[in-house]
């Protein structure tokens, strides 16, 4: 059963990813990315990461994708030029991508897996509680740093999208 779920979700994710790259209109790329996000969230659930699954749906498929859709809706579907300005670009990127795929493939084949950590309760693994225990004790400092990161990003976004003085 889990194997069937894995392959269905993997197929969904790969088809969605191909759609992201292949569609000419940005709005279709965004909607394909939503498909990828949902398929990956199914895989996260399969990997007993319940909390990350929920965050993926809410933050990614919800908030970030709505942000993209807003920008596309505000500025119209800018259609892509068929031709690129740089010659050889698609050819060179094809070579680069094939080399990268071979590299990652050989890396995956060469992985030496470590023994799982002892004493982990899989029924408890990945729940909100188990994540909160680690996040608010051992990793409290990085957690607080991410709040500063979000604050900086919010201030930056407000600064960039403010009304300029000479527009008034």
């Amino acid at each position, binding site marked *: 059963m889990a194997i069937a779920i894995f392959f269905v979700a993997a197929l969904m994710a790969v088809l969605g990813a191909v759609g992201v790259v292949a569609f000419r209109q940005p709005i279709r790329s965004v909607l394909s990315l939503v498909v990828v996000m949902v398929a990956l969230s199914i895989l996260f659930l399969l990997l007993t990461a319940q909390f990350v699954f929920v965050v993926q749906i809410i933050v990614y498929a919800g908030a970030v994708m709505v942000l993209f859709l807003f920008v596309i809706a505000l500025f119209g579907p800018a259609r892509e030029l068929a031709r690129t300005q740089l010659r050889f670009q698609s050819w060179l990127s094809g070579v680069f991508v094939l080399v990268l795929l071979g590299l990652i493939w050989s890396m995956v084949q060469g992985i030496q897996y*470590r023994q799982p950590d002892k004493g982990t309760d899989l029924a408890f693994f990945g729940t909100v509680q188990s994540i909160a225990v680690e996040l608010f004790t051992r990793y409290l400092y990085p957690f607080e740093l991410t709040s500063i990161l979000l604050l900086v990003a919010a201030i930056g976004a407000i600064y960039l999208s403010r009304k300029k003085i000479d527009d008034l």
Partner: protein
Amino acid sequence: MSTMTIGGSDLDASWFLILGAILFIIGATGVLVRRNPLVILICIELMLNAVNLTLLVFSRQLQNIEGQLFALMSMTVAAAEAVVGLAILVDIFHVREVEDVDELSEMKG
């Protein structure tokens, strides 16, 4: 030791890793081939998601929760990156229509 027992059946960790590699490479192809700055940002999000998948696979295989925490951190970074990137794009779109990222080369030395 690469198999993981999930719901009574054995799944291999390398299947997930290869899926993550395929998604990452499709995203990289998009960044290299597409011209629209918005679509390039979308492809970067796709690559970040593929990396998140590998983090969660290793977290599950080692039965160690730290990988999941790191995936949450990288989601935060991705959200911040999307917000700032889109704000910059909106600022540029106010000035003119951009169909190709190669048009944005005024800051070239």
